[in-house]
């Protein structure tokens, strides 16, 4: 008999697997005047979109459920899958419920994608946000605040409500709650990894890409109460931290497989933008300024955010140690240049810290994982049966 958890997870899976953005279509029917704005990973200030009375929609590719027919021709070889699946969704009309799409300069491919979309989807407004990469400069916060103001202006032009401080503060509070709930779920899993399936957690988290944050908060509260199954028996598994999947997402089956092959996932960087801030964004005072400063000073490290003040490789080692991880699994999207580059320094640091690691490449459009399975199993065997 399906439990309440199964029910929640199944519901979320349906939302996530619906490539035609059914939830978004439904929301727009209920809100005939309002717009939906998509955003490409990794981070986007969804609070602003929400405060404009619009629905922010997280785009994280299409997984293995979409057959690439057009996008390969536009982006060619050596380009990661998410670029192609996102474009394919657009070229096949699946992004039609979106009135606009927001991009940031996470990498060279994503940046070019923004403008390829602009040419191919003239009905949609394509916005490009420059998130500052030199947080050490005294001018960065002011610049970012100005950039957010520009975006707010564009959203208003697109038919959004006027964004005032009160409305924005309310939106920030909702998203603070959303992130706090996710933090709590992650903490729960890290403490008792045998009690929570990562795939379940993941689906519930990812469903938030398509529904209003209020709805998602309710789902997350439900998940917090019920996702864990206290009766589950701990297995003899390897405790790992996953790094490298901050943008393109591994296929659902692969996420499941990692646990089946004998790993407990203590932390990961899936859908990193949903958990971007390490603390609540202040809701008193100037909200735009608070968002900007939180971006610069209180956000998680990521391969697509440059901050030379804090070295990512040290932060990864610190995280693995803090969680008591036995190993780090690099789960990198094929052709994801930012992840490839960071791997070099990560690897060096992990080796110095004597933390074993395994590098795996995936493509979101892949659907067989024999080789990956063998590699994960071998890795587990090598550490468990010494």
């Amino acid at each position, binding site marked *: 008999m399906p439990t309440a958890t199964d029910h929640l997870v199944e519901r979320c899976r349906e939302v996530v697997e619906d490539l035609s953005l059914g939830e978004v279509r439904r929301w727009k029917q209920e809100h005939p005047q309002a717009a939906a704005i998509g955003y490409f990973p990794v981070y986007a200030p969804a609070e602003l979109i929400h405060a404009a009375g619009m629905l922010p929609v997280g785009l994280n590719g299409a997984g293995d459920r979409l*057959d*690439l*027919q*057009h996008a*390969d*021709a536009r982006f*060619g070889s050596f380009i990661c899958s998410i670029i192609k699946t996102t474009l394919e969704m657009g070229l096949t009309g699946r992004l039609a419920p979106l009135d606009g799409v927001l991009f940031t300069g996470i990498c060279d491919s994503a940046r070019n994608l923004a403008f390829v979309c602009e040419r191919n989807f003239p009905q949609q407004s394509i916005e490009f946000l420059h998130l500052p990469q030199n947080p050490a400069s005294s001018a960065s916060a002011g610049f970012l605040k100005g950039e957010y103001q520009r975006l707010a202006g564009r959203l208003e032009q697109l038919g959004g409500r006027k964004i005032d401080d009160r409305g924005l503060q309310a939106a920030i509070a909702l998203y603070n709650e959303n992130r706090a709930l996710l933090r709590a779920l992650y903490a729960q899993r890290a403490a008792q990894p045998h009690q929570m399936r990562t795939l379940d957690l993941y689906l519930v988290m990812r469903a938030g890409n398509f529904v209003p944050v209020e709805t998602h908060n309710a789902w997350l509260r439900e998940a917090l109460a019920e996702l864990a199954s206290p009766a589950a028996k701990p297995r003899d598994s390897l405790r790992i931290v996953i790094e490298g999947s901050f943008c393109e997402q591994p296929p659902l089956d692969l996420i499941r497989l990692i646990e089946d092959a004998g790993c407990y996932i203590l932390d990961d960087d899936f859908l990193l933008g949903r958990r971007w801030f390490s603390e609540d964004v202040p809701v008193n005072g100037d909200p735009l300024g608070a968002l900007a400063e939180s971006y610069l000073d209180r956000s998680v490290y990521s391969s697509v955010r440059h901050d030379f003040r804090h070295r990512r490789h040290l932060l990864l080692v610190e995280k693995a140690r803090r969680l008591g991880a036995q190993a780090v699994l690099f789960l990198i999207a094929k052709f994801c240049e930012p992840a490839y580059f960071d791997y070099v320094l990560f690897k060096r640091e992990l080796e110095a810290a004597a933390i074993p690691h395994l590098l795996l490449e995936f493509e979101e459009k892949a*659907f*067989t994982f024999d080789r990956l399975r063998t590699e994960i199993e071998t890795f587990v065997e090598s550490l468990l049966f010494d």
Partner: protein
Amino acid sequence: MLLAAGVDVGSTQTKAVIAGERDGFRLLGRALVDTGSNVQRAAENGFLAACREAAVAPEEVGYVVGTGYGRYKITFGHAQMTEISCHARGAHFLFPATRTVIDMGGQDAKAISVGARGEVLDFVMNDKCAAGTGRFLANAAEVLGLGLDELGPLSLAARHPVKITTVCTVFVESDILSYLAQGKQAEDILGGVHLAIARRTVSLARRVPLEAAITMTGGVARNLGMVRALEQVLETKLEVSPGAHFAGALGAALFALEKMDAGMKAGNRRPADAILAG
């Protein structure tokens, strides 16, 4: 009569066509031989065989254009042209409405966008990896113990095509074997193989405009299963001549006639299907 020849030295098979000009274009003979390991020999053999069929002496042939990957090995040729130009020309001759050519040969696949006069406007080809080419099919046939000409018809009988996971021509073997082990029917496996190649080819071909009419050429065009699979993925009908395999050689022969300065008059062309179907 002015006589010219086109010799298409492909990676797998060598095709030769003898053509003449008298009251318009005439296709006099054609031949197909395996390329094998001696490219130069294959070119000669193909040419001589076509001459025999045309009942002309090799010396009578005034101009020979070589094409295909082995074109530089044709010692008796007068000129060489790329197979891209020749397939476009041949396809346009067979179907003057052609705007796109999909050529699938033994080791590569290409898509060519052509203008109203058969001129090449744009093209793409896959030739770094043999995945999704005639070789892929030939391997599948071998594993299943079938002849090349049995592949297509059988694949058309597929009711539940399997999902083929590998693109590697060599490893498709093991995919097929594992499906057989699971008790899948040969036709369903073949259906899956054909679809996999069709998808791959179409995603390559979409890099050119893909306007209708789309004509398919090359040896794989003889495989009806592949034609249907491509049609299914493209959601449009393909023009396929029974002589599709010879399109490159035919194009080369047309260029040869032209280069011989015989001046090909547009009005005199006639569909060569009947002759080519032989």
